[in-house]
């Protein structure tokens, strides 16, 4: 059965969204996750995203390097700017036990902002080929689990029930689905925009890893274990994609 492409995007990104719910499962078993677990989870996420960024670059860049680069700079600059405006540049995503009311909103905001470029990545990959789109959704889905786990752990420590925490974590990723479908629709309608979308996705993913995921990792666990976990995750993505699509 072949799905109509837009429906496929919706399905794949929807599945990725649901996987965020799975992030709550480890939280159910332990009230307080040790910081090193959070660090390693973030490291897996970082490695997967770097791998995904590489796949997108290898797929799209050879055809239009200049436009791709311009898009990447745009993606990077946009995230840098929005974080600056929201005052969340130095926000720590894992302060278990922080009960300040603002922190909750900031956390949800940041997570939603993160989910958007991931959705763009899925949408863009889908325009390159359905199998790449499916693969991208899988990578993001896997990546959703540790990210949602971190968020759910913090929310739960702030007093939400497991169900509420899991629900909130999943909900922040709704923007993934929206952006995936929107990106796919826009690029399908205007193929000239494809290299831009690709560039923006890559730039945004890279910035997220460098500005958010990795700095957190290094505070939560040892450098060597973080580096090993991240590079392992990257390697798996590269290998599973056969190196280049």
């Amino acid at each position, binding site marked *: 059965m072949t799905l109509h492409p837009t429906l496929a995007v919706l399905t794949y990104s929807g599945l990725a969204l649901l996987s965020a719910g799975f992030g709550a499962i480890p939280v159910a078993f332990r009230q307080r996750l040790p910081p090193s677990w959070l660090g390693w989870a973030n490291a897996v996420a970082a490695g997967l995203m770097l791998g995904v960024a590489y796949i997108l670059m*290898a797929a799209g860049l050879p055809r239009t390097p200049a436009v791709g680069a311009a898009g990447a700079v745009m993606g*990077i600059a946009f995230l840098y700017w929005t974080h600056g405006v929201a005052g969340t540049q130095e926000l720590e995503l894992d302060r278990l036990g922080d009960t300040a009311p603002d922190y909750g909103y900031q956390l949800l905001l940041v997570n939603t902002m993160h989910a958007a470029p991931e959705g763009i990545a899925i949408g863009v990959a889908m325009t390159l080929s359905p199998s790449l789109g499916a693969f991208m959704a899988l990578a993001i889905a896997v990546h959703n689990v540790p990210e949602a786990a971190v968020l759910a752990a913090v929310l739960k420590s702030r007093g939400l029930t497991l169900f509420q925490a899991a629900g909130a974590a999943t909900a922040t990723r709704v923007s993934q689905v929206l952006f995936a479908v929107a990106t796919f629709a826009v690029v399908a309608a205007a193929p000239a925009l494809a290299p831009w979308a690709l560039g923006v996705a890559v730039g945004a993913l890279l910035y997220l890893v*460098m*500005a958010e995921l990795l700095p957190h990792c290094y505070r939560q666990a040892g450098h060597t274990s973080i*580096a090993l976990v991240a590079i392992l995750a990257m390697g798996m993505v*590269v290998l599973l994609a056969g*190196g*280049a699509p």
Partner: protein
Amino acid sequence: MPDTARVFTYALLTAFATGLGALPFAFVRGISPAVVAWTNAIASGLMLGASFGLVAEGTQYGAWETVAGATVGVGFILFTQRLLARSGVRFAHARGPGAQRMLLMIIVMTVHSFSEGVAVGVSFGGGMALAVAITIAIAVHNIPEGLAISAVLRPRGASLAACVGWSVFSSLPQPLMAVPAFLLVEAVRPALPYGIGFAAGAMVFMVLVELLPEAFDRARRAPVALIVCLTLVAMVVFQQYL
């Protein structure tokens, strides 16, 4: 000029090109923590960008071989780190972790040059046009490598002359390996993805385990992230146009 001498000369020129990468650091003298963070960020972006290009190339020969090489590269860094930590090293008027990082950087880049030298040598089997193209590509690619090396050495106290010297040194394996590679092309070609993977794995791991943690320790993460990302993109695009 007989062929082997030509191969050697071309590869030697690529090695000297690495020294050019040190020149921008004529103006950097301060060793404030923030400068270390930003130059680490530059080096990280360059090395990650280079590794992306390497992986793309290596996987054309074989994805598993490239990843296998990368695994060895990671192991090599771990091993060298332990070795340096135990030996209480001094280097270019620095000691301790600063000296360790400088030495590690030089070792990584030098070992990486072996596979570049092989690439140059192998390309001569494909006719002069290809050989010239590859040589220019490697020479130009060497410049950011010299930049990355100097970015690690200069803020930790190395003189400009030392930066130039060590940059060139790190590329000397290129002419040394180019000649045997040229003479033994058929034997050497299967090893290429392993060598490429090794270089990529070592560089990425070094960025993740040394350069980035230190950068995030010493400066605010948003500017560091910005520098890494922009440099990475620049390097990837730069390699596309070679």
